[in-house]
């Protein structure tokens, strides 16, 4: 195959162009970059594999010996042989539900306002920038906020150091993330979808409700559920608002009392609690608890992917 090259570049140019187009093997630089990228990927995967292998290795005495017992026992930081994660799992799930109830509607509402109604005014832009900054605030700061507002100031409503205060704190923590991801999902909806609705006489709200929101639903769902898995992995703010680290016995409290008055714990708090204890037994317990949190988070993320695929729409 010959390549037509203007005369002024000369025959050499034509030859080098031909070579470049056909001789990929001699593209040394390209090869090097490819290898660097591949090794970056390999390294990341290696770290992940090493983490999981290390966790399984640490956790093996528990996984092998008393997994069922471990899953059904309560928090116990004094005796590794009786330590478990049942209370922590249900605490994490309760927190996740509170976060879902509080942060999702609020965050999605904020996002709809910012994207569909607020326009490009100076204030709207300022708010958007601030929301982005809030998403980067360290979680411990939200813990202080939760302690001040939900435990001390509104203690009468939340019951003090309860799972409600913890859930509200986590909801505040993930709210900016929910707003940002929902905003991005809304922004990705083609303008023509809105125009189509408005063109046949729909009001703004009707267009948003029946056209924009359904189109953006997969993105919003993915974002919110990922925010949920972030909330499920937080320990620091919960330690401040009262996550129990030593022992949690609920006595004859009813379910309602446990939620509104009693103490709570969660997976990350339990892991923190077990990691502080000494001895190989507690290392195994810590490893097993970490693995279970990992599985929980994978389940939540899997749910996100499933929901996204389920609601995926094409235009």
């Amino acid at each position, binding site marked *: 195959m010959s390549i037509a090259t203007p005369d002024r570049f000369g025959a050499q140019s034509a030859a080098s162009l031909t070579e470049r187009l056909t001789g990929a093997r001699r593209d040394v630089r390209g090869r090097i970059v490819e290898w660097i990228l591949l090794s970056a990927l390999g390294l990341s995967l290696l770290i992940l594999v090493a983490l999981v292998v290390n966790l399984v290795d640490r956790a093996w005495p528990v996984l092998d010996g008393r997994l069922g017992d471990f899953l059904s026992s*309560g928090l116990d930081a004094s005796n590794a042989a009786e330590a478990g994660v049942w209370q922590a799992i249900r605490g994490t799930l309760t927190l996740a539900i509170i976060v879902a109830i509080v942060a999702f509607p609020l965050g999605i509402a904020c996002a709809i306002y910012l994207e569909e109604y607020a326009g490009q005014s100076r204030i709207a832009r300022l708010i958007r920038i601030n929301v982005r900054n809030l998403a980067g605030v360290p979680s411990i700061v939200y813990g202080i906020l939760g302690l001040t507002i939900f435990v001390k100031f509104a203690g009468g409503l939340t019951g003090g150091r309860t799972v409600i205060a913890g859930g509200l704190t986590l909801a505040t923590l993930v709210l900016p993330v929910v707003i940002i991801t929902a905003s991005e999902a809304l922004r990705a909806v083609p303008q023509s979808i809105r125009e189509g609705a408005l063109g046949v006489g729909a009001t703004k709200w009707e267009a948003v409700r029946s056209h924009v929101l359904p189109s953006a639903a997969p993105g919003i769902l993915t974002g919110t559920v990922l925010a949920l898995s972030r909330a499920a992995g937080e320990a620091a703010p919960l330690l401040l608002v009262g996550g129990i680290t030593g022992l949690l016995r609920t006595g004859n409290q009813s379910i309602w009392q446990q939620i509104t008055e009693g103490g709570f714990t969660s997976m990350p708090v339990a892991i923190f609690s077990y990691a502080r204890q000494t001895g190989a037994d507690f290392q195994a317990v810590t490893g097993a608890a970490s693995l279970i949190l990992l599985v929980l988070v994978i389940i939540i993320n899997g749910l996100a992917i499933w929901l996204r695929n389920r609601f995926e729409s094409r235009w």
Partner: protein
Amino acid sequence: MTRTRWTLAAALAVVLPLAACGGDDDSSQAPSTDATEASTAPVEGSLEGSIFISGSSTVEPITAAVAKLFSDANPNVAIQVEGPGTGDGFAKFCAGETDVSNASRKIKDEEAATCADAGIEYVELKVAIDGLSVITSAKNSAVECLSFTDLWALLGPDAIGRNNWSDASDAAVELDATLAGKFGKIHAPYPDAPLTVTAPGEESGTFDSFVEIVFGKIAKELGIEDDAPRPDYTASPNDNVIIEGIAANDTSLGWVGFAFVEENLDVVKPLQVDGGNGCVEPSPDSIASGDYPVARSLYIYISKSKLADSAALAAFVDFYLTDEGMSVIGTGEGQVPYVPLAAADLEATRAAWAAR
């Protein structure tokens, strides 16, 4: 659209039962009421109420273990134990939030004043002893014993920048001349080896205890205010991290709770300590007898105003001080590895509780 709605409903249907589980009660684990636990309360198993315990993370395992036994015998009592630290615990205790405060030191004057301002009276009960071990790497054969004077020269406020053991030799000789052996003989000259220090940070009760026991008296003797250790060391509140730090350097130095050393004798070496009466090896016996100079008492503080309202709280403390309650402390399987009180001390604690 309809299909989408059904899917949403189905997703909710999956999630909501989890919400119901969320508040489930764990009393299913509690019914093992052994006959041996008859000593707990006047009316076995019929007690109700809730007990909230916070404070020292060092004491937390003891109290949690006792609470577990108590809870097994009294399944209707709700108990929560947490361990944010002695200082944080007293802050909650003096705000009336907790019933019992675990403490790895006595209450400070300012904390006591806060309690007094809030109208909270308390009973102080000594429940166990925690020895602090001065440790180095197991590979370090150059050092066997250090006196308080040595520790001041190597770790005290003036030791800042001494990155080699031998840097402290001159200071130790000078200090020895002033203190005249009151806090033990010095072991200078020290080996010519790098000095890397890993120890608890300021937020830790173990830090406070070490400063109080080892440095406090020397600072007083020297007539200086500053009894804080050199700031230039690797600090961690996590005892396991400290053990790792000590093990990582052959000529390291630091201190940690005695119980943590016993489990790591393969990597760290506890040093003998001379507090003025000769070098003493840390051991359960030498700590309990008081011969080993770097040991601290562990306490629980009970709110008197909460006692008036809660029969469960009084029963819990009663149980704590029984032989069965105290049996959670020890180095056996499933026991919390601190040093139990000597018989006379335990009697004194029981007397203090009875006289509340």
